[in-house]
């Protein structure tokens, strides 16, 4: 679990940096992408264990990226957790409908808590995939 590979798709450079450093400290391997387009490429190239996806991004929005990820055979199985600062109900509903594994609001979490959540999502995903928590 500790060496799981996480892809962070986030356009804000400070938040991207914070996520990267924070998750690396927890022992994860972290890839980053600055927008949805790059995120899709990274997901296909690296097939991470979990994707943290921002919603409001240039080029390809988070929801568009999510849709593309779920359409792609290669990336369909990767659990995608939305990590946004939007708490608009419509966004949450749309994300769920498109197959997001979870919805996290950045401002509500510390990096420590974010790491904890990532672990629990990975465990959940592992159980459904038939692999017990390591």
């Amino acid at each position, binding site marked *: 679990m500790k060496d799981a590979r996480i892809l962070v798709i986030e*356009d*804000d450079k*400070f*938040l991207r*940096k*914070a*996520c990267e*450093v*924070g998750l690396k*400290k927890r022992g994860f391997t972290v890839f980053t992408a600055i927008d949805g387009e790059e995120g899709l490429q990274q997901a296909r190239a690296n097939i991470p264990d979990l994707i943290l996806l921002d919603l*409001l*991004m*240039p*080029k390809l*929005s988070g929801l568009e990226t999510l849709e593309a990820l779920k359409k792609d055979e290669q990336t369909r199985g990767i659990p995608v957790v939305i990590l*946004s*600062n*939007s*708490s*608009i109900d419509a966004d949450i509903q749309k994300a769920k409908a498109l197959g997001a594994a979870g919805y996290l*609001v*950045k*401002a509500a979490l*510390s*990096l*420590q808590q974010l790491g904890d959540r990532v672990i629990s999502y990975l465990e959940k995903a592992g159980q459904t995939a038939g692999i017990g928590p390591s």
Partner: protein
Amino acid sequence: MAIGAALFIFLSFYAASWLWQKTAYMQAELFHKGLSGPIYLNRLNFLANWVGLLMLVGAIVYGFKIARQASIDARRNAQLLQETQQRTMEIAALYDTLQDVTEKHELRTLLQIILERARALLAASGCAIFLFDREHDDFQIAVEVGVGMPIGTHLPRNEGLAGRVVETLEPVIINDFQNWSQRSMPLRHLPISAAVCVPMIRGGELIGVLGVHEVGETNRKFTEADARLLSLFADNAAGAVHNARLVEALQNSEERFRIAAQCASDLVYDWDLTADHVDYFGTPNITPPTTRREYWSLIHPEDRPRIEQALKDHFDTGKPFSEEYRIGDGTGSFASVADRATAIRNQNGIPIRLIGAVSDITERKHAEQMKSDFVSFVTHQLRTPLSGVKWMLELAMDTMDDPEELKSFLQDARTSTERLIRLVNDLLDTSRLERGKLQLTMQNLSLAELTKEIVDELSPLTLEKEQSISIETAPDLLQVYGDAQLLRQALLNLLSNAVKYTPTGGSIQIQMGRDGDRALWSVKDNGIGIPKADMAKLFEKFYRAGNVLAVETEGTGLGLYLVRLIVERFGGKAWCESTEGVGSKFLVALPLAA
């Protein structure tokens, strides 16, 4: 009886005269034979003679008596006949009179009709109706004809003829009005010679007093019969007035209801649940459906189950029905409405009617949506730098042993804080400008100098993006009148937009010139340009062009809105010319300094 008596007298007289004649004849025959008749014949004859004479006298006396009686009877009969005829005429007149009165009339019209009819009924020259005013406990002269009473004037309840009538609730006749001491003050000077007044009472309730009068020099004396006739008429007239008032009150309340419905831009409906028919009040823009099924089919399919349930709950449990839903006009477009309704139930509690008011809340819904969008947007925009600060500080605390990294995290936290401050300032400025609360220091400003300062300020950014900036200024010094800080902010917003949306290596051109009595300032870039569809809304609050998000997501959607607010505050104008993919030109026209 009289005939029997006359017959008896006649028969007795006849029998007596026959006996006298018979005895006289027998005496004459005997005398002719030279004989003298028996003495009884003489006596009989004598008796018959006197009895006949007595009977004759009796008959004559009795005949006289009968004749006298007959003459008295005839006179009485004639009088009776006359009275009957009079009554018949009165009743006929009353009937004709009431025909009009009992028809449905507006109160004012009805009072006029009563007035005319009452006057005609007594063939008098004037008439007046004094309506009882419950609120003031006095009388008001409602209508009058003949003498020119002051219409609308209030008369004290206990004064004058009307006062006397109310006191006794009986007709009052004053045939010498001018010398009557209790004349009501407002009517004292009027040339009324005689008057009859009767109460108008309906179901024990005093409606008013009906008065008929003669004017000027006249010998007319009102009689008890006049009073009686007028009373009969007044009773019916009172009923008619009462009804007219009820109808008027009903119409008033209905009218008020209608006005209230219209003021609330409402459509009020009355749904007959058993007949499934709807009546509408108000002025709807569309022709509303008249059956429930038709109405139901217009409700947005997503809202329908909720409304059905709410209505069912209202019918079943009496839970208040107050729902908002979307309703279509049949052409595919929907309006948002608020519907509040109450069921009218029969004695078994079964709803039989549904009365409700529907208001169009489309505008309000739109405003709510805008507000909600605003809150969401601001929340998002505030949370992003806040999250940055929070996370950077968290990382910094874990990195106390590495001064270089610590410094980097703290630097990032500070940058995020600055972004946060900018956003909050923009929001505050917007709010103050919108409410006109901002204190301005108006002065003459040099456009060229201000522009140069801003360009210098932006130079680190333009250098980084390798952009070239050119400034073209008109030969004469352009001075505008405004607040230095605000104008600076407006120009800064426009210039930093140009830098932001012009690609690396691009060029930015600033031009200043005179356009009549205005200074014209513009900045032209060769950036991404603005889609045609977005041009109109560009200067609106929180509006961000569709293609902007593809470049960056940090914008607040307040920059151009602030530009517009500031420039308009100085009496100027801001607009934009652009071709998507080619570049944009933002222009500002400002009044020149005096």
